[in-house]
């Protein structure tokens, strides 16, 4: 059983709808050229006050939730900016999974590409789960990727992942490597495509060269 077959840990409540990636990873943490140090930026304005001091009332700052591995969040978690830094930051902070009624579209793809598990459950289930984990910091949430069920303090629920995402999650596939196996197909496609639509071939290069250097 791999570390990705069973994900379990304490769940913390983040009862806000539309928690966007600007809030998950604010702009001042996007200035690097690598992925390091993003745990510091995670939910920064919620975790720290304007002087940089931790906000004692924020759930992830409370000792009881020190071991949080799962976030129970509001609808459209991760909407907004495409910044993958939001996913990297969650993982560097120790988050393995997020449960919410829905997720931002680009965030969802980014999470799948990084093996951050996202699980969608109905809004009323999330509300009840939010209250349950809020009431008990010793809660446990466990995702079984074999049975595709999540066990929570309020019951066990089935969840879905597409077959592709499930195998990516379980096996950590090199998606680029897989696509590169189709390189000959891609090159053949491109030749035919450019024959039909020649005005698209090298469109970036030709436009830039037409403009000259300034």
């Amino acid at each position, binding site marked *: 059983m791999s570390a990705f077959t069973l994900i379990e840990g304490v769940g913390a409540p983040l009862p806000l709808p*539309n928690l966007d990636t600007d809030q998950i990873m604010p702009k001042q943490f996007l200035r690097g050229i690598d992925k390091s140090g993003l745990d510091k930026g995670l939910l920064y304005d919620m975790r720290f006050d304007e002087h940089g001091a931790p906000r004692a009332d924020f759930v992830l700052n409370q000792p009881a939730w020190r071991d949080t591995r799962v976030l129970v969040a509001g609808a459209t978690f991760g909407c907004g900016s495409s*910044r*993958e830094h939001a996913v990297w930051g969650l993982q560097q902070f120790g988050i393995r999974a997020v449960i919410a009624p829905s997720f931002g579209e680009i965030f969802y793809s980014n999470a799948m590409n990084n093996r951050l598990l996202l699980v969608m459950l109905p809004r009323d289930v999330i*509300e009840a789960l939010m209250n349950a984990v809020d009431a008990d910091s010793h809660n446990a949430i466990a995702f079984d990727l074999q049975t595709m069920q999540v066990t929570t303090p309020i019951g066990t629920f089935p969840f879905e992942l597409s077959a592709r995402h499930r195998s990516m999650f379980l096996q950590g596939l090199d998606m680029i490597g897989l696509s590169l196996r*189709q390189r000959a197909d891609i090159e053949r496609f491109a030749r035919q495509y450019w024959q039909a639509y020649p*005005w698209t071939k090298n469109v*970036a290069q*030709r436009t*830039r060269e037409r403009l000259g250097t300034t």
Partner: protein
Amino acid sequence: MTEPSPLAAATGPLTLYRKLVDSHTVAVLDAQNVLLFCDLHLMNEYTSPQAFTGLDEQARGVPMPGQNVAVVSHIIPTHPVAPKLRVIADPPSALQATNLKHNCDKHGIRLFDTTDAMQGIEHVVAPEHGMIRPGMVVICGDSHTTTYGALGALGFGIGTTEVEHVLATQTLVYRMAKTMRIRVDGKLPVGTTAKDLILKIIGKIGAQGARGYVVEYCGSAIQDLSVEARFTLCNMTVEAAARGALIAPDDVALDYVLRRASDIDDTQRTDAIAYWQTLHSDANAAFDMEFAFDAADIEPYVTWGTSPDQVLPVSGHIPFPEDQMDDADQRSVERALSYTHLSPGAALEGTAIQHVFIGSCTNGRIEDLRAVADVVRGRKVADGVRAMVVPGSGAVRDQAEAEGIAALLIDAGFEWRKPGCSMCLAMNDDVLSPGERCASTTNRNFEGRQGRAGRTHLMSPAMAAAAAVTGCITDVRQLNPLN
């Protein structure tokens, strides 16, 4: 509802969306996914570095560099200095810019660099030089790539892992979206714009309203929009969580492209036009969801909260949390009002602002600046207001200077800045101070977006200009009597 599948028969009436996906499908991978060929990949300095690093680690190259281009857009300061003197003082930001140039040079990718006179916001620079053509698939590590649907190109934002995938293969593993059609008939009233229309739509269908869908706009009000107004509409459709936005290219769109894409020579032009004219949804094509709006109902819209769907006509009053449908909505409104420091029941109009920001990939184009100039002409920026205009690109800036718009705005008390994303997301040094309230032509009023504890009110360029000259949220139609 069944999930959209590339395996379903592509016969009978097809949507424009399906035509675009089919024409770029290298291979059907499974019931939901295709390997999608990407005509144009735009990059910026902050969502691409880790992708290039990933390529290097695997010793992978960029097989089709001519389909990729990069623009320094997000971190660049906008202080008014000559292009050659544009220096990024912040060391990590400067490193992002030099790193982008290094990566582009290494892989043979063309770049609009920091000191380039044509530098600007990627979504302004690419179309204004004719790089976006109907029928293309355009992707970028930036959510506002939906902009290009205005020209009948399928544009959408991607993450950095996918940036790496495109660089290495010129394709993406693409999960098909559901289709939504939004019909807008009638005429937009004087004083309203595509920005007001999209704010109204987002307010109606919600910040999640188009999640999972590619939205196709149609109707007489859409046909009446200029291409730049269509950019605004498609750009902000992502704020309803859409995976794309499309408008079938018409003569207006084709003219826009052909006037800019001068490399399309006479031998290609006829074929190109013939192909582009097939890029529309067939009669009787089925959509998974449909909405209709009457343009005559549109008023100037202004956001009051911290999500783009928290929006009202300028004549509206701040909602009461207790009037919301359920506890979650009530908490959401309470939190938003606590952040924006507004009182339930208060009139939106007349709310004092300290800052005005005009720019962004949503509203940083020449028509936007003309609309601002039309309102500002003969007036001054109100006392106590800092008003900033950041053109979307060097070309927009030059055009505005040639038309006298820059002089008019400077004379009225506006700061006339260099191009970039600037205070739309405040990655450079253009940042709101805590508690400052800003009338902004941008796309997101999220908490902290324009600066920690900064309060953003999204609105059209004309409405932002009206706020600049009065010092408060103002109905531009009242300011400019319709005589």
